[in-house]
């Protein structure tokens, strides 16, 4: 159904405001140095106050993952309208489940316990402190927010896939075909993508703005995924990292990944 003139003007007006607002929001957030208590502050209207942080991070307590469990992947892909093409060539995914020796090739050796070598761990965008994908993007379609989240502007991306070559973690997917017919169940609260753009995990920033933790974190019955503000000493993720030994993927590359693995 075509929108009426009045509806169109309304949409155009809101869009015009939207063009101005996001930069302002990030600016004030960065300057004010968002409140640290619990990593939570109240700003945007909505059912719940928006979650804010100085640096969002995730810890993966991989030992807790039950074998074969794909709950986090399913929840994420449903929430974000990630298509399921059913073949490796066109594959688009935000979270993957990979063998631990493929995720940490430098750390895994043959004398580790069998149970450990068989482990599969969830992999996702690391929301690097120093993201190579942002550096190489020729249109700034991928960018980093003040709170560390590496974002994609699906309307600006030209689909050159330089970011996919630059990402040392294989976290990015290209929509080689129109994804819409392959979305099992469309979630009306999140945009679908067009063909020809790159996409990846966004740490559920749309959820955070509404006061909700990432979909993968909330769905996990084992509490294997822990999310929070790394700069807040009282946050769950900080308490976990303070107490146990953790590693990150390819830290030698200087990207500063913000997903920490407890193995």
């Amino acid at each position, binding site marked *: 159904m075509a929108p009426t003139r009045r509806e169109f003007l309304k949409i155009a007006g809101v869009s015009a405001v939207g063009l101005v607002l996001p930069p302002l929001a990030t600016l004030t957030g960065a300057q004010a140095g968002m409140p640290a208590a619990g990593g939570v502050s109240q700003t945007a209207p909505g059912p719940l106050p928006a979650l804010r942080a100085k640096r969002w991070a995730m810890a993966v307590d991989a030992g807790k993952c039950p074998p074969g469990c794909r709950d986090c992947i399913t929840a994420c892909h449903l929430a974000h309208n990630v298509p399921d093409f059913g073949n*490796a*060539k*066109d*594959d*688009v995914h935000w979270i*993957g489940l*990979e063998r631990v*020796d*493929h*995720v940490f*090739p430098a750390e895994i050796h043959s004398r580790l316990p069998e149970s450990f070598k068989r482990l599969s761990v969830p*992999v996702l965008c690391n929301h690097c402190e120093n993201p*190579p994908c942002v*550096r*190489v*993007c*020729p*249109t*700034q*379609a991928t960018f980093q927010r003040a709170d560390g989240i590496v974002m994609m502007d699906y309307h*600006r*991306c*030209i*689909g*050159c*896939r*330089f970011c*996919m*070559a*630059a*990402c*040392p*973690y*294989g976290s990015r*997917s*290209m*929509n*080689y*075909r*129109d994804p819409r017919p392959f979305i099992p169940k469309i979630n009306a609260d999140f945009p679908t993508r*067009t*063909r*020809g*753009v*790159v996409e990846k995990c966004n740490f559920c920033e749309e959820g955070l703005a509404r006061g909700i933790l990432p979909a993968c974190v909330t769905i996990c019955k084992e509490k294997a995924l822990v999310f929070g503000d790394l700069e807040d000493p009282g946050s769950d993720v900080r308490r976990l990292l303070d107490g146990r030994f953790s590693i990150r993927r*390819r830290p030698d*590359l*200087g*990207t500063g990944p913000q997903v920490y693995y407890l193995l």
Partner: protein
Amino acid sequence: MLEKALKGSRGYGIWVACLLLLVATGFFFYLKQLDYGLGITGMSRDVSWGLYIAQFTFLVGIAASAVMLVLPYYLHDHKAFGKITILGEFLAVSAVIMCVTFVFVDLGQPGRVMNLLLYPSPTSVLFWDVIVLNGYLLLNLITGWTVLGCDRKGIPPPAWVKPLIYISIPWAVSIHTVTAFIYAGLPGRGFWLTAIMAPRFLASAFASGPALLILFCLILKRFGRFDAGEKAIQTLAKIVAYALATSIFFVLVELFTAFYSQIPGHMQHLKYLFAGLDGHNTIARWMGVSALTAVAAFVLLIIPQTRKREPLLAAACCFVFLSLWIEKGLGLVVTGFVPSPLERITEYTPTGPEVAITIGIWALGLLMITMFYKIFVSVRTET
């Protein structure tokens, strides 16, 4: 002068018609790609750049090689190159247009291409590559066209052309350096992360470009009533020989560093490229051809007796072109992605439509070269 490209013999007409047919076929499949998306190609999540970007990389080298004529002629007054410097410049123009077209067809959202200029991003090497490539295109088009126009009227070229020609010399080096930096600056892609990527690119460019130019000169001599002269061709052949030697040397240097240090992340890509990994050896077989033709060409070019015999020289130039096209236009790009960051080996095979589009763009380039050279020969035989 453009009208001279429209009149020609029957053979010329058939040749142009064949090229036009290939261009049209490529365009037809590009429309299909626009409709379906880049999924029509063999590219995948793991191997996200393929034939298009590889052709772009190879052709930047062909474009840059014009400097091998311009530099000796304008800086060292090497008179033998006087007759063919314009051929080099027009080759550069055609190659850059092919480069830009290959990048364009590789975009997932070609309608948004202007975002490159609307949101200029100085941290992105691709942004700089767009700038230097277009600058190089303008420099060569303006200088080549002006000098040829003056030749036609029998007057010396205007003084303002000289500074542009001098600028085009370092500019040629810049286009291939910036293109190498697209690859050499990426963390986590061990195969490309090498400081000699730009020197390697330049060495292979200065072999493949002049080799192609020699072939064009030999074709013009036989079919175009234009003789570039023995001296010019022999000088070019020597340039090809030494650039090829440097190129082979650089590859051996890479092999030493990887296999003597024995760092797995550096060895595995080269193993895939030259021997294959886990039975995946399609590219390795191509690379075998590349290595053999490189050595054969080097032998033919370095021995004066074989270099001076035209059929053998032509064979050597074909070998050089084939060898370096396989190395840069096939192996270099794909191998950077294999194995993937998650240690997967994903084979890449170009699809029919992808090959048709690639051939279409090559045909477009050849068509431009044909027309430029036709104009050139007509002007030269008139005066």
